[in-house]
């Protein structure tokens, strides 16, 4: 990593020199150009993403409120992590909510998306309409999704309560305010978008499956369910992995909806909102916020590595 940190020429130069015959035709100028082509983007990624990631890890072992410059940073060892699990009340709720989010996506939203994709894979009239309707929410921002669903969930003016007749003070259902309900309400809104996302990706994958495979299975007398389970699904392995990783990553990234509803408090705590709430506002607890970020990092690294090793193996069989 340290060798890619310096911008441009060294990286390119070193690489080019090693890679042999093919590059004998490259002039010095070409090498500089290639070096810049690799160096500038690499610099951007390393400087704005990788260094902050490493800094998060380091800061998580310190105490700092952001005042008094870097000199005021105090190393406290594992204290932040100890506080996190012993005294910081929202931590375990947040972790639980992230897991519920993941479970809901993994076992409900994603399978529904796959199911729709399989249904729409059949050539028939109206497919374009169905497909469009299901994928429409994907272009919307999660912020807008939040607003649109607030129109349904709002206590007195919301559609759901108006239909149910639960708008009076004595029987009001506070879909987004009640901590035992709001996570589920938000998950429905999040799934509205996630299902379409999965459907689009899976449908593209299904279109690339060799149709003769399905025909062969049909001739052998396999029913539709069997054909999907034993023939199509296994062939779709690379897409299945992409879908799995996207589902996990999206669940860990969940933030916008919870933050829009109530800043991620009172039943909607998530790791991401805890990090945010620890650095904005009056009491900026940087070390502590970083420790939460590292927990988020550690749980994200698993699926990321899983995906990358797969991608790598595919590239170099």
């Amino acid at each position, binding site marked *: 990593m340290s060798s890619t940190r310096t911008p441009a020429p060294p990286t390119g130069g070193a690489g*080019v020199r090693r890679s042999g015959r093919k590059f004998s035709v490259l002039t010095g100028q070409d090498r500089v*150009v290639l070096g810049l*082509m690799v160096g*500038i983007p690499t610099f951007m990624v390393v400087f*704005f993403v990788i260094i*902050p990631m490493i800094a998060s890890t380091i800061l998580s072992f310190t105490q700092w409120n952001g005042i008094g410059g870097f000199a005021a940073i105090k190393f406290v060892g594992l204290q932040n992590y100890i506080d996190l699990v012993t005294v910081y009340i929202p931590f375990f709720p947040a972790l639980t909510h992230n897991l519920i989010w993941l479970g809901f996506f993994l076992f409900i939203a994603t399978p529904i998306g796959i199911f729709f994709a399989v249904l729409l894979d059949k050539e028939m009239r109206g497919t374009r309409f169905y497909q469009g309707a299901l994928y429409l929410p994907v272009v919307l921002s999660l912020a807008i999704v939040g607003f649109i669903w607030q129109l*349904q969930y709002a206590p007195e003016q919301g559609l759901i309560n108006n239909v149910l007749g639960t708008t009076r003070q004595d029987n009001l259902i506070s879909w987004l305010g009640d901590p035992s309900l709001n996570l589920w309400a938000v998950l429905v809104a999040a799934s509205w978008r996630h299902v379409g996302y999965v459907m689009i990706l899976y449908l*593209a994958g299904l279109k690339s499956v060799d149709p003769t495979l399905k025909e062969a299975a049909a001739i052998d007398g396999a029913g539709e369910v069997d054909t999907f389970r034993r023939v199509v699904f296994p062939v779709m392995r690379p897409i299945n992995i992409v879908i799995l990783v996207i589902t996990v990553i999206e669940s860990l990234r969940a933030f916008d909806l919870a933050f829009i509803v109530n800043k991620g408090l009172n039943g909607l705590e998530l790791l991401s909102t805890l990090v945010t709430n620890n650095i904005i506002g009056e009491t900026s607890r940087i070390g502590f916020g970083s420790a939460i970020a590292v927990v988020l990092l550690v749980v994200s690294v698993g699926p990321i590595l899983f995906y990358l090793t797969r991608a790598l193996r595919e590239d170099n069989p």
Partner: protein
Amino acid sequence: MRAIAERLVETRASDAGRRTKRIKRTVLHAFLIVMSLVWLFPLAYAVYTSFRPFAETAKLGYVSLPQHLTFDNYVHAWVQADLPKFFLNTVIIVVPAMIIVLFLASMMAFAVSRYSFRFNVGLLLLFTAANLLPPQVIITPLFRMYLALPLPDFLSDNGLFYDQFIGIIAIHVAFQMGFCTFVLSNYMKTLPKELNEAAVVDGASVARTFFQIILPLTRPALAALATLQATWMYNDFFWALILMRTGDKYPITSGLNALKGQFFTDNNLVAAGSILVALPTLIVFLVLQKQFVRGLTIGSTKG
């Protein structure tokens, strides 16, 4: 006689088969129509509410047939919430960010897919990993960096990355670089290797090979990615929320939250505001659907 009877039985069987097939199809269509309507409902309801005067819904309730439909809520949302200003902020951020990230990522993709370096795979992995991280993992140090790093006056009116359009542009570029590089390098790998060799034989430099041969051939992938990236950057809520302070500089999606207070006097106004903000992405949906979907899928299906 028996032959005829057999044939009769056969046709009847295939008739029955066709009939069950037709019934199956009908059930499938019915199911999909219902599901499509369910999926469209929340947005359709928002549109409906946005056209109704508040006084009317207050009197008749939200579940009622309309007596008047009006554009008033749109006018109010547009003026009261100062939406044009926020739209402009978004344009100032999204257009340069999209162009820069596509330009840099296509150079990177060109270098790693058409030439072999020692670090090729490593770099690509690093980029992809950086793109998959939750943004909150890096936000705390990034926020401090933005407060500490100086910028010259012509780039920043407070001399910092913090609270500046350029700061938001920079993080969009850096964060989306991995995805764009990944998609573009997959695409460039499908272009014939002979193109490079021919260019070498003709004595073309690396820069010329890139700009005049490879880049024009990459146009379809660039168009798809541009659509996708513009939508994603337009939709981003998080970066400006943390990395900007001045509400007047917020891009529209982040600005929404600040507007909530003003909007929440009545739901009809919320609906109109939401539809207005969603409009550019709805246009993408209607007009650039193909590009958007391709942008999403060439990343996952390699081609």
